[in-house]
């Protein structure tokens, strides 16, 4: 029997597998004694193998590769995802800092903590976005001069 899975369904299943993996890691951290490490390693390996086969089945179900419409769909989806993810992450991290910040303590310790690190990464995304804008603008002739601008 031939199994058929569309790409979107395969992505959703892989996301659920990732959620289960996070649950296993959570359990292992909580349990914190043998065989937590072994179970986690086994679960991660099985998860990766299942995800690989799912993506492979999806590739075979929807062959034909990438054309310009698929590229457009993918790039628009990726951009929207990144925009929403950025806003949500930045808001959540900012809220976390405001909630837990202790002004009586030396704040410099917190600067190198994970929350500040993630905030700095999110700011880094803006800089990366600008860098890519410059690169692609240059690639597609945005900075070229012509006889009217000389």
């Amino acid at each position, binding site marked *: 029997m031939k199994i058929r899975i569309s790409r979107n369904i395969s992505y959703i299943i892989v996301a659920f597998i990732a959620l289960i993996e996070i649950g296993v890691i959570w359990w292992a951290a909580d349990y914190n004694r043998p065989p937590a490490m072994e179970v986690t390693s086994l679960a991660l390996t099985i998860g990766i193998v299942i995800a690989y086969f799912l993506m492979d089945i999806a590739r075979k179900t929807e062959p*034909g*590769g990438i*054309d*310009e*419409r*698929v590229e*457009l769909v993918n790039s628009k989806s990726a951009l929207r995802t990144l925009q929403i993810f950025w806003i949500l992450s930045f808001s959540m991290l900012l809220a976390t800092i405001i909630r837990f910040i202790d002004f009586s303590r030396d704040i410099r310790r917190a600067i190198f903590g994970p929350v500040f690190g993630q905030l700095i990464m999110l700011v880094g995304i803006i800089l990366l976005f600008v860098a890519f804008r410059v690169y692609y603008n240059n690639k597609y002739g945005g900075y070229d001069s012509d006889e009217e601008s000389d």
Partner: protein
Amino acid sequence: MKNRIKVFRAMHDLTQEGLAKELGVTRQTILAIEKGKYDPSLDLAFKIARFFEVSIEDVFTYEE
């Protein structure tokens, strides 16, 4: 943008799948173009026109 791909396909006795294979795109792309949900790039528009051996204006009609 309106197009007459379906008409030209019928004239050449071609399925969407067949045309897609000839042009190196997916069947869904041909379907989307025919339904007017996706405007092809200039490159693909020329490929379609050349495949049917007509001018680009014969296949596509621009509407404001």
